[in-house]
């Protein structure tokens, strides 16, 4: 009120416009005292008023009793005077003037005039206008924030302008501000913004967000736009309705499928897709079946998105259409379930079948079942039972000419089937890089019966084929392969390492001597592979052999023997291991030092300490590394000293070891290294250690380093801050989230997901919802899933309402684990049916008894689409105790789709 009092003046006139009262404010701004003004005719005191034609407005008030307002934008002022405070734009005070009739009883006896000084406000508005048009995002952001805090209508209008800003941060503030300010009356303004700016996606999306967040009902006016003569308007109305997440939009959109304009019909299909409009699937399927070149594609996409499995079988014939077969295959892969496998197989079993697209569909279905339910084998089993000899022949023939993804899908499907011819077809395909993984998986599944075929491949021309055969043999674990693998181990340089790995997996002791022969190999990787395999064999003679080998003349042999003896911790080798710490060869000493912490001998610490102080740089580095495994209290003095070692790698491993031990005593040294060490990797290791130790002093250093230009250092500092629970660690992470550098923001998101904190879930939700960078949005969803607090789970549930984020948010929820099921289950009562469906889907993927119990509640959902999704989810979970409920639904549900799904679920 203080502000108003100081900026408004009031005077009155009689019916002849003679001034009767004149307040102090007016006296002060005009320099005319009340005594001077009273009794003077207005036009005499201020002749300009008459000259500007403003007296007629007074006369109208007196004659008609109306209230006249002199708009500032047009008239600027009534009484010319200087602004109260200096203005950079206006020489004269800008005034908002209201002229109201002054009455006595019912008679008009004069005028009551209020003059409001709006100069400062206009100045500020112009400033904000300029700031909103600035090229600097930070300036625009501040302006939007200032407007968002105001309650004036003018602010709302400016904020609407900011909805089209190129920066998502500015748009976010505008959406936030408007969502607070908008009232039902403003819906028309928003809709006007939509109408006028519907070609600007920024405005469109932001205006729609305001509508969604403000809770104002826009369905009816938007639906009305669908009857407008303007085609463009009808198109954006379909967009807007699709984004309202409100099933009440569905009937209007289904009506729009009959629009005279194909473009409107096209966009209506997309909107129905967004709304997952189960009610539209029959019409959409009919459009797909019409094979209309323009509309069948989006119709198939929409059907895939809606996910009503009832119509899947109707799409199978479209695989025979050369134009539509690919999107139809996609749709079947996405929305199909076990029910579509049989018709796909039936088509595959015909001569001239579109083999590749069928394989594409089956492969997509297989992958989706694996991704969502970890049940890809279900699809493979159904397919293998339904594909006959003709189908097999078709697959094999198609493989002859296929390449790339097509070949991979064909191989995947063929690999579900069995038979000698299939096996012989698959084995040579190990040479095809794109299909190698699928071939190996199939062969491993076939098991020992393909051992001979795989052994044949050990002589193949292509080295990758030979390697893949070895990998498969190792995984099959058939001891019959051992002689051939031993031969490969000894005769083929390219195969030594994979052969050693395979022999290690098979674990047959016949390979022992051949592997031991390799521990002196000149190639370090070969030695390591041989050592790993020998360690897997666990041969009873190894301890005795190690005693001998630790004294071998060949340093490579001694080095490998150290690794084997250290791994098993043979008592009889302890003394020799200590001796090898002083071996003449550096690599042997290094290996011995690495393993010395694992032997139980009092002398080990002294040997390690001596090595850390006096050995060569590489051995000192190995000792620093090894100290991570030494009992904490005893290691500290050694490691603290090592932080000052002349060699960077010694300091590096010492810092890492200190971090693992969490020595707070080393804070000063670590802070020094993090800030000033000459070797970048040492600074990074020190930063990592500071994150493990934590505390406000560590945070202060890390906050500075989080702004470093060097990406690795910055990244390590942000990660370290994410590990620290101290409240000071949060602001630098939030600051990094506002960076213009995407890499920095991604790291900040990951760290926030680890750390959490007040307001973090909300911030992550905003990024996930509003950031146009898909990687940022995904990272924010991942961070929410890692956070897994009640707020984060709610945020993920809310995000499922956004079609662009739905799948990622569902995946995030589904991976949260058993202890979060109850929190996820709250989403079953969400007001939006699309969210409830998403929650059902997430629960269905969790395969937990508690999830099934929550799903049973969703069988009573008021929306058929939610009940349908629930039936599908329960069918996947295979819960026996829901059978009665399914029987009831199959008989009595009001929706045919739900009844059908329940019947199919019961047949499983």
């Amino acid at each position, binding site marked *: 009120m203080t502000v108003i009092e100081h900026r408004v003046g009031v005077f009155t006139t009689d019916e002849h416009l003679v001034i009767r009262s004149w307040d102090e404010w007016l006296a002060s701004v005009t320099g005319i005292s009340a005594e001077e003004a009273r009794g003077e005719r207005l036009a005499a005191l201020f002749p300009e008023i008459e000259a500007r034609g403003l007296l007629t407005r007074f006369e109208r008030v007196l004659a008609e009793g109306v209230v006249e307002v002199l708009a500032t934008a047009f008239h600027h002022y009534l009484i010319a005077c200087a602004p109260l405070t200096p203005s950079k734009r206006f020489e004269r005070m800008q005034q908002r003037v209201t002229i109201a009739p002054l009455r006595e009883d019912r008679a008009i006896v004069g005028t009551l005039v209020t003059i409001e000084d709006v100069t400062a406000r206009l100045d500020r508005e112009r400033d904000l206008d300029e700031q909103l048009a600035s090229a600097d995002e930070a300036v625009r952001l501040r302006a939007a924030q200032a407007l968002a805090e105001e309650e004036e209508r003018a602010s709302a209008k400016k904020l609407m302008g900011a909805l089209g800003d190129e920066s998502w941060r500015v748009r976010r503030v505008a959406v936030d501000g408007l969502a607070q300010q908008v009232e039902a009356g403003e819906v028309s303004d928003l809709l006007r913004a939509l109408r006028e700016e519907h070609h600007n996606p920024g405005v469109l999306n932001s205006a729609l967000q305001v509508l969604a967040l403000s809770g104002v009902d826009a369905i009816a006016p938007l639906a009305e736009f669908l009857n407008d003569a303007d085609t463009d308007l009808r198109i954006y109305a379909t967009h807007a309705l699709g984004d309202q997440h409100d099933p009440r939009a569905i009937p209007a959109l289904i009506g729009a499928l009959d629009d005279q304009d194909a473009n409107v019909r096209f966009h209506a299909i997309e909107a129905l897709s967004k709304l997952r409009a189960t009610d539209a699937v029959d019409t959409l399927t009919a459009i797909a079946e019409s094979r209309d070149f323009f509309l069948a594609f989006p119709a198939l996409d929409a059907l895939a998105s809606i996910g009503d499995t009832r119509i899947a079988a109707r799409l199978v014939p479209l695989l025979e259409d050369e134009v539509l077969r690919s999107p139809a295959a996609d749709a079947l892969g996405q929305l199909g379930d076990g029910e579509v496998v049989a018709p796909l197989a039936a088509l595959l079993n015909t001569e001239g079948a579109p083999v590749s697209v069928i394989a594409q569909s089956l492969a997509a279905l297989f992958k989706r079942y694996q991704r969502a339910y970890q049940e890809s084998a279900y699809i493979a089993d159904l397919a293998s039972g339904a594909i006959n000899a003709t189908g097999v022949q078709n697959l094999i023939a198609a493989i002859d000419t296929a390449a790339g993804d097509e070949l991979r899908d064909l191989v995947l499907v063929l690999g579900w089937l069995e038979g000698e011819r299939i096996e012989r077809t698959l084995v040579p395909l190990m040479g095809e890089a794109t299909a190698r993984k699928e071939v*190996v998986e199939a062969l491993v599944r076939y098991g020992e019966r393909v051992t001979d075929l795989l052994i044949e491949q050990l002589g193949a021309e292509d*080295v990758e084929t030979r390697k893949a055969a070895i990998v498969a043999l190792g995984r099959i674990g058939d001891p019959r392969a051992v002689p051939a693998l031993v031969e490969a181990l000894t005769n083929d340089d390219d195969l030594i*390492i994979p052969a050693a790995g395979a022999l290690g997996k098979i674990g047959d002791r016949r390979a022992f001597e051949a592997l031991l022969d390799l521990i002196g190999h000149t190639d*370090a990787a070969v030695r390591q*592979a041989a050592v790993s395999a020998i360690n897997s064999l666990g041969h009873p003679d190894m301890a005795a052999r190690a005693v001998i080998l630790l004294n071998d003349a060949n340093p490579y042999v001694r080095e490998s023997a150290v690794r084997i003896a250290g791994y098993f911790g043979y008592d009889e080798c302890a003394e020799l291991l200590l001796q090898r710490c002083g071996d003449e060869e550096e690599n042997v000493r290094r290996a011995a030092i690495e393993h010395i912490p694992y032997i139980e001998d009092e002398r080990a610490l002294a040997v390690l300490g001596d090595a850390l102080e006096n050995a060569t740089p590489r051995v000192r580095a190995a000792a620093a590394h090894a100290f991570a495994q030494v009992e904490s209290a005893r290691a500290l003095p050694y490691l603290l000293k090592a932080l000052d070692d002349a060699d960077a*790698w010694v300091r590096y491993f010492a810092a890492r070891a200190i971090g693992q031990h969490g020595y707070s005593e080393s804070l000063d040294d670590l802070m020094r290294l993090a800030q000033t060490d000459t070797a*970048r*990797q040492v600074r990074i290791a020190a930063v990592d250690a500071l994150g493990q130790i934590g505390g406000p002093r560590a945070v202060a250093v890390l906050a500075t380093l989080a702004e470093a230009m060097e990406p690795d250092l910055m990244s390590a500092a942000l990660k370290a801050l994410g590990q620290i629970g101290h409240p000071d660690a949060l602001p630098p992470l939030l600051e990094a989230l506002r960076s213009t550098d995407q890499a920095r923001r991604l790291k900040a998101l990951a760290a926030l997901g680890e750390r959490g904190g007040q307001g973090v879930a909300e911030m992550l939700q905003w990024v996930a919802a509003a950031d146009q960078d898909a990687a940022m949005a995904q990272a924010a969803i991942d961070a929410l899933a890692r956070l897994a607090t009640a707020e984060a789970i709610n945020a993920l549930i809310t995000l499922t309402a956004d079609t662009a984020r739905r799948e990622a948010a569902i995946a995030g929820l589904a991976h949260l684990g058993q202890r979060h099921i109850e929190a996820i289950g709250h989403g079953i009562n969400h007001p939006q049916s699309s969210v409830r469906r998403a929650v059902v889907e997430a629960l269905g993927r969790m395969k937990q008894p508690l999830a099934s119990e929550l799903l049973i509640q969703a069988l009573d959902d008021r929306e058929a689409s939610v009940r349908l999704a629930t039936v599908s989810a329960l069918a996947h979970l295979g819960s026996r105790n829901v059978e009665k409920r399914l029987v009831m639904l199959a008989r009595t549900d009001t929706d045919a789709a739900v009844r059908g799904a329940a019947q199919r679920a019961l047949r499983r």
Partner: protein
Amino acid sequence: MHSYADTLGLSDSAFTLLRDLIHERTGLFYDNGKSDLLIDKLSPLVIDRGFTSFLDYYYLLKYDVEADEEWKRVADALSVQETFFWREVDQVKAVVEQVVPDYFSAARAQPLRIWSAACATGEEPLSIAMALQEKGWFERAPIEIYATDASRAAIAKAQRGLYRERSFRNLPPHLRARYFREEQGAWRIAPELHSKIKWATVNLLSEADVGLMARVTIIFCRNVFIYFSEAAIRKTVRWFSQRMTTPGYLFVGAAESLLRMTNEFQFEEIGDAFVYVKK
């Protein structure tokens, strides 16, 4: 599917960082489907350095004072040395039967320079030399052949000139008999042919390296771009085009296409081979 990292017990937590660093420095890009391959190639180096994680090795390559030396080892490890004589020989024939005669028909005083830019263990430049020798070109005209690879180890093998059986899968027997003699279970290239080639180590992602070599009329750069990212290919091809003579002939592998990568060459058919021609 598998990787040596499992067998060797390495942590792959920082593998992506390392992959991107290698892409930046060498142009070689290993997408997610090929990550096992890269892990296999690098694991021995990580082990040999005494490290247990790719992160340590990444810091070594990026920050250590001895990183330059380590990068040479990386180049060796990543080198694809699975090649053979007379591979994709139509292109070699196109050079010998059409490009070389056209070049010397213009009575040029300058020697004809040929660069085999990713020669691995030398089978490609030796195949070119054999084809030229078969047509008697070395006696009639000045021809220089340069052969380079990013891998020191590959070039060292090429300089030794000793080849195993796998390198001969495509070479006609009479050429093998004429240009090789058996030695310790392998085959040694005839010294007079071997000496026609000048060997060097070149990183195709180094403008300085490419600048030294690319002032030639013919470049064979085959079966290397399949391992490069698009950005790396564009860069290297641009450096080629800036320095090659006009006309200049660039041969790439049958599985490689530059049509989307450059406007600086015209795609032409010469004999039975396709070639990118700078005009």
